[in-house]
């Protein structure tokens, strides 16, 4: 369900290939995968997306596919095998806009909007009409799974299986069993993740889990720090400066405002709204995000993967303009860069996530970078140190409040799911 969405389409792709592989290994097995979504247009686009992605995947695993199709005498060349595999994967998929089509499914994967009421009503409807007592997987990123379990009356037949975006690429899955989750469902989920070659990090069933538990608070920190700069700088300049601090000075793949754009300002705001009631001692809410949404600035992506306008406008994936709240216009980034750099001061070298993250000498490079940053007396270095320490505080909070079972789990989520070069719980600034 939600198969045509950004997450749903990736999950569908991986699952359809896994089912096809299982059927090729066991000719007796007959599996069908229903792709259900409210959008008929989305579903037709989905098939095109799946087709192109399966071809790419098949090109990479042709050695294996030739073995799986060894009995097909008509499939001789790699091209023949890749074409047949693509047809077979597509043939396992039935697209539908009617929920009733999946009433008899034994396994349901839900990846719809992060809306508790909607989720509960749909889970309920399927369960009520099913003869199968189906198992439910849910790609929920912030709503406690236990609540869905109780409200939909599923008695432990649901498990949180939280992919990262895009699911076809990202290696991380957060696995969130409810208290009464059936052990055989947990076992099945682990196997499923293993077959999809995903890394599992277990998370306790607490709103936001580990990934959003860190991201939302980290984002709020960036927003607050940018606001503090508003005395000296325009809105656009402040946003640009904090984005640069959280990317270049923290050696992250994206700055915090770019990441919010990537996920979608509307989605971030919504996740905060979902999480906030569960956090009595915190206020997880941003007026700024509300303001932007009322002005129609939403971020997120088009279905072809290009970025919509948010805090920034993008050209070929690079920031080209920055949003100015006062005027509602976008300012060319070139007009801001120099001012930002003269405020933050120079970057320690090497100063690039890509250089560091894929280097065999990564550990030393990071220590070297942060030890330089520690000794620098520039405004940029100070903001960066605060940021690193806040990120660490959030990480430790997740461990101390029992959301994550260990420091390692928190670090693994940020390193795998967010592509950070290092985990937030570190000793760089002790």
């Amino acid at each position, binding site marked *: 369900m939600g198969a045509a969405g950004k997450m749903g389409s990736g999950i569908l792709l991986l699952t359809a290939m896994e089912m096809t592989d299982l059927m090729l290994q066991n000719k007796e097995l007959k599996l069908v995968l229903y792709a259900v979504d409210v959008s008929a247009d989305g579903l037709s686009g989905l098939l095109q997306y799946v087709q192109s992605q399966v071809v790419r995947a098949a*090109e*990479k695993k*042709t*050695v*294996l*596919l*030739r073995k799986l199709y060894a009995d097909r*005498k008509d*499939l*001789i*060349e*790699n*091209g023949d095998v*890749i074409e047949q595999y693509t047809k077979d994967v597509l043939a396992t998929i039935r697209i539908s806009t009617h929920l009733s089509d999946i009433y008899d499914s034994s396994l349901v994967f839900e990846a719809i909007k992060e809306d508790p009421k909607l989720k509960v009503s749909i889970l309920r409807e399927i369960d009520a009409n099913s003869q199968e007592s189906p198992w439910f997987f849910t790609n929920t990123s912030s709503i406690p799974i236990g609540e869905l379990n109780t409200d939909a009356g599923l008695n432990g037949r649901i498990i949180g299986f939280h992919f990262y975006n895009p699911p076809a690429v990202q290696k991380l899955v957060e696995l969130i069993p409810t208290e009464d989750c059936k052990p055989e469902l947990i076992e099945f989920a682990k196997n499923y993740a293993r077959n999809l070659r995903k890394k599992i990090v277990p998370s306790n069933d607490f709103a936001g889990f580990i990934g959003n538990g860190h991201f939302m608070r980290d984002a709020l920190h960036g927003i607050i720090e940018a606001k503090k700069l508003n005395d000296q700088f325009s809105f656009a300049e402040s946003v640009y400066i904090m984005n640069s601090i959280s990317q270049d000075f923290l050696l992250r793949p994206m700055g915090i405002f770019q990441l919010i754009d990537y996920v979608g300002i509307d989605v971030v705001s919504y996740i905060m709204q979902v999480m906030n009631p569960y956090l009595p001692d915190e206020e997880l809410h941003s007026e700024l995000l509300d303001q932007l949404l009322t002005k129609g600035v939403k971020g997120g992506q088009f279905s072809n993967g290009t970025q919509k306008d948010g805090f920034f406008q993008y050209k070929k994936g690079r920031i080209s303009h920055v949003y100015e709240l006062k005027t509602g216009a976008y300012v060319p980034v070139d007009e801001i860069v120099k001012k930002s750099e003269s405020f933050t001061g120079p970057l320690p070298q090497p100063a690039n996530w890509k250089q560091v993250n894929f280097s065999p000498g990564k550990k030393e490079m990071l220590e070297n970078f942060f030890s330089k940053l520690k000794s620098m007396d520039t405004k940029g270095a100070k903001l960066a140190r605060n940021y690193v320490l806040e990120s660490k505080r959030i990480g430790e909070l997740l461990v101390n409040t029992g959301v994550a079972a260990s420091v390692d789990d928190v670090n693994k989520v940020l390193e795998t799911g967010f592509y950070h070069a290092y985990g937030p719980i570190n000793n760089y600034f002790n």
Partner: protein
Amino acid sequence: MTAGYNTISLGTGRKEFHPKKPRPGLEHYIDEAGKGCLEQIGGGKNVDECVIGNFMAARFNKQANLPGFFPMIDPDLRFKPATSVEGACGSGGLALTSGIRSVLAETAEVVLSIGVEVQNTMKAIYGADVLAGAGWFQERKNGHAYYFPGQFSDRAGAYFEKYGREKTRQAFARWYKNAIDNARLCETAQEFHNNTEDLEELAMMEPNGKVFVDHLNVFDCSKVSDGASSIAILSEEGLQACGLTKDQAIEVVAWSQVEEDITKPPQDLTSLTTIRTAVALALDRAGITMAQIGTVETHDCFTVAGLLGVEAMGLAEPGEGADFILQGNTARDGVIPFNTTGGLIGWGHPTGATGVHQAVTIWEQLTGKAGKAQIEIKKDRPYGMSVNMGGDDKTIVVVIYKQAT
């Protein structure tokens, strides 16, 4: 032979190569190589006949009837005879022997031979299907996804089993290092820009049969290349007619071209028996021994083919090729330098062009035109030899050359 010319070998490794950006096509390479040779021999008016060696333009480029491209190079080639020859990766060698035959038969005084292949038109996984055409199609179904790497991986595996793995793999790594060292001295080489420091350590990477083949890694393999080479094959009269002197040319002392049954598996996986036969025949015809050969261009489509080639030439006993290589004999400062501009692994392997490229390299070395890649040709070893192979030891062309006098 004289007036050799090579285009660059374009593909991964070259700075100007981007898989997603448009690249020169087949026509460009034929034209550049053709003009490169013709400019040195006074133009198309001096040419009596043309031959083009190519393996699979019909699939890589959806183009056949390649002789028709000669008049495009130079209008003076219109209405002159031209032929296309094919013997898989030995096509270039056949373009040489075809020209040699015409000159010997006195039906031509000057033959323009070109070899060409443009392979980067498709991803490697589909290119492997095309290249598999060098084997028997009836065997394709049971072959590896990467068909030829699979064939030579089987040879490597059999060799490991018979003679030991570790030292053999070290010899493969040394072969790779020599190839890159040589390619760095030749501006047209695909690995010219390679600046990896420890090449042998890199090449010792463990093979991974899950994603590639069991006994070879990518450094054991030749390149996927776009490129063309050309050379003029002339009689003494032809040389004079082109206004050239003998010191600019090399003499074809002897050649052999032998064929093995494509429908039969190799008699012995640890030996290149067809190359062994062809080399012995050519040496016999030339009346010389390997001890008189100063440099060899051999068909190292894979490191293991380089090593087995060394043994097939009789330079080392079966099982001792690795020692021969590890002792430095095939390096550019060794007893008998091999593949002095990088060979198929370092210079590149535009399949149908390779046989011609080998002749061009020997021509450069024996006439002192090899630039930075120049080796010393000693008086007691005045001969050069090229060994070009189509398929898995099926179509073999060996040519022995010396400076023309």
